[in-house]
């Protein structure tokens, strides 16, 4: 207890980091006819997986440790993505279809004459970077404050987080919101003055995503191995006891929810330039539910499980939606049922069982939705 990672953990962390940050980009720079060459299209794909992994990590922090099953984390991811998208739109400059130096194409199309005030500043990367952190963070803080202060927990909290992302979904569909409506934002050209469509940029974004995922992992590890981490488990398992010990349950929940939303926002911001589009579908309630499935499959309350679950499920999605598109949703449903019934501790739980009981995870959740409330 108490240390960020043990010796074996650090070795695993650094070895994984080395492979992902050094080996993968190097293989991509090999000549295309070399048998070890990593195809160009795989780099942004892997970068996308890293963003999803960071997103899953953010959900595991609140769900696995603090018992807050947020089914609206896609909203924070999308808001981070929109902040990045706004910056990328301003970077387009006069290269848009309408060649307006200030207004993005969709505003010209709607006959808008000037830039709405909330677009100010997004031509600067530093400002956009700040918004990527602040917008999801402030929304989570305010939403969390209202919900947790009123002691909304369990299924009720899950439902209002769904409502949150649903409301934003509807709002962002509207053209008059000024975020591109149904079509969202796309046709990005540059990032930091460098063209987006280049091998070096793809590798750079991929590396940035992996680094963000690694740092996010360390931040989460730091929190869950601290005394606050133990307090979060206590909040998850016996809230009244925590209150009668003199801790504010709501403060702990708001803190961890806000940190989690910021991580999700960063994941979204790194995701958008790699997929080249951001639109309201990222807010769809089903998207947020899918994140919970990644975490459940990997093993909640383990952090590593979130990373593994996100990558495996998304790899399966990439493969299946290409090979047998109609099978994907059945597969997702089946795997979720399987996890719930057969291996509630997910992949990490299975691995731990094979390795023997000596390494039982510190947080052993029972069922997927259970909520232990003291009398």
């Amino acid at each position, binding site marked *: 207890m108490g240390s960020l990672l043990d010796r074996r953990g650090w070795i695993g962390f650094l070895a994984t980091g080395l492979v992902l940050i050094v080996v993968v980009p190097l293989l991509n720079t090999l000549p295309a006819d070399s048998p070890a060459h990593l195809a160009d299209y795989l780099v942004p794909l892997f970068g996308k997986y890293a963003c999803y992994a960071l997103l899953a990590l953010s959900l595991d922090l609140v769900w696995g440790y603090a018992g807050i099953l947020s089914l609206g984390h896609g909203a924070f991811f999308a808001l981070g993505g929109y902040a990045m998208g706004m910056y990328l739109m301003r970077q387009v400059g006069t290269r848009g279809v309408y060649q307006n130096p200030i207004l993005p194409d969709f505003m010209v199309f709607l006959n808008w004459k000037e830039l709405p005030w909330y677009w100010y500043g997004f031509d600067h990367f530093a400002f956009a970077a700040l918004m990527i952190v602040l917008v999801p963070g402030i929304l989570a803080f305010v939403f969390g404050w209202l919900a947790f202060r009123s002691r909304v927990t369990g299924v009720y909290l899950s439902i209002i987080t769904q409502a949150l992302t649903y409301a934003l979904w509807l709002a962002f569909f509207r053209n008059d919101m000024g975020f591109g409506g149904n079509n969202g934002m796309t046709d990005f050209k540059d990032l930091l003055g460098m063209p987006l469509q280049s091998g070096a940029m793809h590798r750079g974004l991929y590396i940035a995503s992996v680094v963000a995922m690694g740092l996010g992992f360390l931040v989460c590890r730091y929190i869950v191995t601290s005394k606050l981490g133990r307090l979060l488990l206590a909040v998850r398992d016996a809230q009244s006891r925590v209150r009668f010990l*003199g801790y504010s349950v709501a403060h702990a929940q708001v803190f961890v929810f806000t940190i989690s939303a910021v991580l999700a926002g960063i994941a979204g911001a790194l995701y958008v330039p790699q997929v080249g589009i951001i639109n309201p579908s990222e807010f769809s309630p089903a998207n947020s539910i899918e994140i919970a499935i990644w975490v459940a499959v990997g093993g909640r309350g383990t952090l590593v499980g979130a990373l593994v679950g996100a990558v495996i499920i998304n790899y399966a999605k990439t493969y299946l939606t290409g090979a047998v598109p109609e099978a994907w949703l059945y597969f997702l449903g089946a795997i979720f049922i399987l996890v719930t019934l057969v291996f509630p501790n997910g992949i990490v739980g299975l691995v731990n069982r094979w390795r023997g009981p000596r390494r039982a995870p510190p947080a052993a959740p029972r069922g997927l939705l259970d909520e232990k409330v003291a009398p």
Partner: protein
Amino acid sequence: MTVEASPGTTSPEFTTSLLYLDGVTVSFDGFKALNALSFVIDRGELRCIIGPNGAGKTTMMDVVTGKTRPDEGQVTFNGKFDLTRLDEAAIANLGIGRKFQKPTVFENLSVFANLELARKTVRGITRTLLAKLDTGARDEIAAMTRRIGLAGREEILAGALSHGQKQWLEIGMLLIQDAQLLLLDEPVAGMTDRETEATADLVRSLAGEHTVVVVEHDMEFVRSLASRVTVLHEGSVLADGSIDFVQNHQAVIDVYLGR
């Protein structure tokens, strides 16, 4: 303000009284769980509260610890704090600790971590995030595990403890929290005879240093504590005095003991 005229009642001087309930009424859908309940607990006192099911014992604890807001009446702690205006966490930080009827410890945390969380510290989030245990704190936790008979079990998950051990761990958490007033809701429920005896020794050793209020059904345990006893019935005090006094009290026999 009404004070029951019965043997041993002290006048509610704020200087000697630690907890003072005055005319506390709580109704749930018209049912009065507490009906103008008034009593005083002195500093350092050990007091047992008994009564039939539905007499309002647990509701009384809920009111004192801030879980339930009374419809009427006042609850004064230490002569100056009106507990009816504070929330659970604030009340806990004033020095009121509560043991639940069903032992409530953090089952997925070790015995050590349970005590670490309970130990009196600044409760803020950043302080908790950055907290480091010094040797003084470790010694304090080790001493507490010995006191509650859990020495050598520090690293065991609290969920793996026996029922009795969980009760003791919970009491240990209240002690290390440095609670002035301990509210123990049925501390020996489900315990073996030997565990009950050990618990009686522990609770008796607390009086004086702490103020202890025990809610219990087990009359033998109450007798072994040799404390003053308050009998609740239908949300107010029915009788109050020594165990012999209340056991021979006709109204108490009628509504509670005699059945």
